[in-house]
């Protein structure tokens, strides 16, 4: 693990403890997830308990302690998506990728996660793959859509 990248991020935030969330966000942008040894390193460098860093990294939904795939699928399960069949869409993706929500495909292509509302309720059900939001989904649209991702 290259800790010099971490050092750069810590310096960007002037080693400020109050910036811990932003620091973790930048680290996750860099590594795609939060490696455990990095969390320990951050705690040591900032002089704060490891438990606090671990607490934040597990409390907030956008952080992941597990390695993520090349593409992150977020299935929205906000209220509008729920009543317009979001769970069915999630199950369809689970069947297509042969994984459960919260895990990664064997070829590391996709990670599948659930999000509580991406704010596109008018187009429910909605999923987000990386930065692309796809609305008005049906089960029939899923397989061709996933095929477009390399």
């Amino acid at each position, binding site marked *: 693990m290259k800790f010099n990248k971490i050092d750069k991020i810590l310096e960007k935030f002037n080693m400020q403890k109050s910036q811990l969330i932003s620091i973790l966000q930048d680290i996750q942008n860099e590594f795609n997830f939060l490696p455990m040894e990095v969390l320990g390193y951050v705690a040591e460098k900032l002089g704060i308990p490891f438990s606090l860093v671990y607490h934040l990294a597990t409390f907030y939904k956008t952080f992941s302690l597990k390695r993520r795939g090349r593409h992150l699928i977020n299935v929205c399960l906000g209220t509008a998506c729920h009543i317009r069949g979001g769970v069915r869409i999630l199950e369809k993706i689970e069947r297509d990728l042969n994984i459960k929500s919260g895990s990664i495909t064997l070829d590391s292509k996709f990670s599948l996660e659930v999000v509580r509302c991406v*704010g596109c309720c008018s187009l429910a059900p909605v999923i987000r793959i990386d930065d692309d939001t796809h*609305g008005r989904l049906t089960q029939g649209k899923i397989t061709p859509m996933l095929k477009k991702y390399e």
Partner: protein
Amino acid sequence: MSNSKIVTLDDLELLKEKGLNLIYPTKTKISVGMATCGISTGAREVFQAISEEVQNQKLDCVLSQTGCLGFCQREPLVDVIEPGKPKVVYAEMSYDKVPELITNIKNQKIKNEWMLCQIGEKYSPRLDGIPFYKDVDFYKKQKKIALRNCGFINPDCIEEYIAKRGYFALHKVLTEMKPKEVVDMIAESGLRGRGGAGFLTGKKWQITRSSKGKIKYIICNADEGDPGAYMDRSLLEGDPHSVLEGMLIGAYAIGASTGYIYVRAEYPQAIVKFLQAVKQAEEHGLLGKDIFNSGFNFEVRVNKGAGAFVCGEETALIASIEGGWSGPRPRPPFPAKSGLWGKPTNINNVETWANVPVIIDKGADWYSKIGTEKSKGTKVFSVVGKVNNTGLVEVPMGITLREIVYDIGGGILDNRKFKAVQTGGPSGGCIPESLIDLPVDFEKLTEVGSMMGSGGMIVMDENTCMVDVAKYFLAFLEDESCGKCVPCREGIEKMREILNNICKGEGEEADIELLEEIALTVKEMSLCGLGQTASNPVLTTIKYFRNEYEEHIINKRCPAGVCLDLISYSIDAEKCNGCGACVRPCPTQAITGEKKKLHSLDQEKCIKCGACYETCKFDSIIIK
């Protein structure tokens, strides 16, 4: 860009002219709605196709973009503006329609079937029979104050905001008004917080203003966590300067020189647009030192959330900005006395801030004439779920639910029967058909057991199971409970377990009373607003839909056909014509049959995924 600093009213007027020329240029302009909702239906592809086709066909025109006009159901929207003529709004555009669109523009033709409306009554209509914006059913009863610019200006362009009188209110405040006068004006307008509880904004400002301490902060709460509500996203994406101007005015009135905005991570485009607005305002001298030569200084910092519903609660949000674990703490002291880093802090929601410049500009009197006795002004609602016209609507307080669902929302999807409307997110409740003529304001919604919340309005039809909805909200809250206090942490889990059993057909008759008992305990004993309201979805569904609970518990039936353990799929022998469309989508090969003959469905193999139901064009899949 020091030459573009705005210092005087003349500077503003100059940029206003520039902005007007951008909004209404002297040649053809094509503008695409590029908020997240537009993009998710293909607006980016449409924009790309237009820029290519314009070159191919050598059309001399301006290409621009705008935010969300609210009618998300009909996205992507494309505006075509010709000098001296009303703006033409095309709905449901796709990239394959673009070549024809550009050819039509070249030939001065308008495609009737694509049109949503035309905007600009001062011109003679471009086409008879096509409604003007204000005559479209979806817009007729709306009154846009907070959303005044969304979908009308390019959010990337400060000049266009200024063209719509943007930053004139700030100029007036800084050059003509004392801070106390500003607070009084907001108080007189009757504006109440749009984030949930509906506290009087002017009063909140007054308390923070009069709190002791040299350093004070203001915060914009953009951690829009209520599932089903997205007005804050739309505002930040479509008109970020209105929020920024509101914050500037508030900061001056309260005596703060630093402001924070806390935006949830799930809204990447909102963050980008707001950061850009901050940069533009800095370049123009509208943020920083000595704004409008008034001696007033203000800077804004942007904090990105990391995904925690509880951060929408003000004390938890403050803790999150401070960098620690984001848990709520008991109030008092309220943030107005002791907030961010122990300093007096005023927190308002995005929509509240966006209302402020208009109130200053048009006066407290004007604003307080809109709405009901205790709920002044307008409120933005996201009308979503099982309704024909989904989208973002801004209506005067006091409008009835019926007007929102039927007149604006166009009624229930597929002509099915209306069952309930859910307001207030996980803190709110489900309002039944018998109350559909309820006037919508803070008090009335609370009276019936729900609440205004941030403005999500999820319409439910006969195919929505109310027990499942209660279970859904509890699962959400169980996930999002910060775990600090026992009633919320344990109570929600227990209620969710009971509801799980009911949905599985394992409920007992005493369960309803037990649910009510736990619900009341959680309501009475929880620490923060989220726990205190967490029982509302359970209590209102029991209150208004007790028969559905009883059907699940006693007859082991889910009348709406939702709870998987209580339903089965079968094929309607009278309707099935053997087209075979359902055979391939079925993941378990449960459906078999010869072409053009009645098909059969093997209950043993069926996993009730609904793929056949989705495919069948003849309504021959029965869910019972």
